[in-house]
């Protein structure tokens, strides 16, 4: 048991001073204490004493650190099946990393995500597909998966889990429950969130709330990538941002030029392991090669 001080837990002031008066200073002092004895000695409720004992006796079950070599060894690349994006990613998306594909309407954002999905299914790994805007119906997924169905791989349909999310609340519940979902489905190695920006178009969302929600998403995604080695692909629309002639932000009345930027910004992605790709059109008749 460590000699970490009890101040670090953040207990209420009265409890802390009661603990100090009875000589409890470090975790080591509480090693042999029980909740009932502690409650009697400190003159606090049984629940409060139990909470203190639980915090002190928590031992983390998952390994908290990973060596750089172990992180490097998981460097399998999964192609998107779109050659120009694969060239940008130097062969494909690395496992445990995040790819955000944004683009103008009609650009193959979902196609890139589905390409990575087939790459994962081809190696018999499970995929969780979350659709936030009904852009990819279940039938389309079945059609794509049936095209790669072979004698050796008859179960590719069973490898993809599909769910729809429409509201901000549903998305945040899903994000909070992500560790539990991954625990229940250990073979899921890829998460695709299509149109992740759509639930954020909530009419009364203040900037502070939005930033707080984006930060929660970033933490959850980073933990999933680090501890569960989950690969994530998100797609999003672009938003128009207007700038005045001197480069400062403007409005539709004062702006001199408009630029298109990904709708959510980089705040919801851990920058150390994310690739952000924007697809745009070269001309009215061009496609992708």
């Amino acid at each position, binding site marked *: 048991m*460590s*000699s*970490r*001080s009890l*101040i*670090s837990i*953040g207990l209420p*002031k009265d409890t802390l001073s009661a603990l100090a008066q*009875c*000589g*409890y*200073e470090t975790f*080591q*002092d509480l090693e*042999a204490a029980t909740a009932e004895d502690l409650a009697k000695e400190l003159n606090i409720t049984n629940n409060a004493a139990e909470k203190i004992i639980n915090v002190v006796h928590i031992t*983390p079950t998952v390994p*908290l*650190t*990973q*060596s*750089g*070599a172990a*992180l*490097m060894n998981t460097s399998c690349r999964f192609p998107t099946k779109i050659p120009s994006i694969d060239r940008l990613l130097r062969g494909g998306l690395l496992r445990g990393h995040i790819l955000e594909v944004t683009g103008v309407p009609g650009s193959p954002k979902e196609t890139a995500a589905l390409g990575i999905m087939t790459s994962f299914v081809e190696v018999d790994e499970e995929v969780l597909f979350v659709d936030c805007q009904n852009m990819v119906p279940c039938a389309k997924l079945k059609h794509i998966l049936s095209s790669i169905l072979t004698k050796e791989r008859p179960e590719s349909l069973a490898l993809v889990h599909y769910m729809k999310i429409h509201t901000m609340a549903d998305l945040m519940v899903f994000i909070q429950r992500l560790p539990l979902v991954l625990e229940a489905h250990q073979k899921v190695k890829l998460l695709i969130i299509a149109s992740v920006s759509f639930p954020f178009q909530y009419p009364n969302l203040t900037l502070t709330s939005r930033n707080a929600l984006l930060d929660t998403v*970033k*933490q959850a*995604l*980073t*933990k999933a990538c*680090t*501890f569960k080695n989950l690969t994530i692909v998100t797609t999003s629309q672009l938003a128009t941002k207007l700038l005045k002639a001197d480069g400062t932000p403007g409005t539709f009345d004062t702006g001199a030029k408009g630029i298109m930027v990904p709708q959510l910004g980089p705040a919801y992605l*851990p*920058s*150390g*392991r994310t690739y952000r790709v924007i697809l745009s059109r070269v001309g009215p008749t061009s496609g992708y090669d």
Partner: protein
Amino acid sequence: MRLTRFRSDISPELLTAFEHLGIKTVARLLFLPSYDLFRRLPPNLTTLQELEACLSSIAEHSSAAHLRGRDLILNDTCSNSPALSDGAHVLDDLLNGFGHSRVIEITGDEGTGKTVLAMNAIKHFLTSDRRRRALWVDTTGDFSLERMVMLCETCTTSDLALMERLEVAVAFDIEEAYNVLETWFSPFNSKRDYQFLQHCVVIDTVTSLLGPILSPVSSQGHAIMVDFMYRLRELSGISSARVLAINRTAMERNVRGAVILAKRKPALGPSFTYLTDVTLWLSQVKDSVKTEVNQGSVCIANIYRSRTTVTGFSYRFTIEHGVVRPCEG
């Protein structure tokens, strides 16, 4: 301090007798005159001499360990490593601790090269000795293993061997950071290793751990901050480690709370700098044309405050493609 921590010095019957008298802490025990205490104990439990011997043994074991000046100087000279960094003195002095400091704070505005400097320091630390290990605590999710691997590709030893000695942990709040540090440092016993500096820990950034708990209406956050920094010093002292804490900046405010434009200071309040041994302030040279640090801009590291070396001393270096190099000219 509870008396139960000193079971080797007190017999169980004596401990029970003390508890019946309401004496559970070392402070209460030692400040009572020994004869008064002897009179209050049940008869025939112990003699006065035995009681006094027990009290002096508890006093010895509950006091802080002594340090010899000779051993401290020996530790200081042994932990200095030879210069490795091709002349970038800031890296040599960072690894040597600017003297013998344990916790170094690296602060500066965004884009001034704090993370790059720390990555270069870790690379040199690991290449200098095969027994050395490093821990990178990522508190924002922005650590890029690829950048670290690319940086290590410039050194002669194999990447994988180096990467095995670097561990990466993610901790988004103070509780997770405590768990990571306690777990990582737990294999090391309490005996100090005077041989050489064995471990290095980088916390990038300490602002995201401590900033959210500080509050203007309660001092509990400040108490937790102080406890965290003391614990870092204690752990680094026990296991012969150097800790680099990367801190962001905040706006300087005058007495009335108004913002003083164009003046920034290290975040986490005025007392944070006193919780570390050295505070290094990074800035970019103003006349450099390039705005991105990775494209060969000149940076200055200024010793903002230090316990162990001269304050105000500056180092100049350049950062090209993520590598810290000495400044020419």
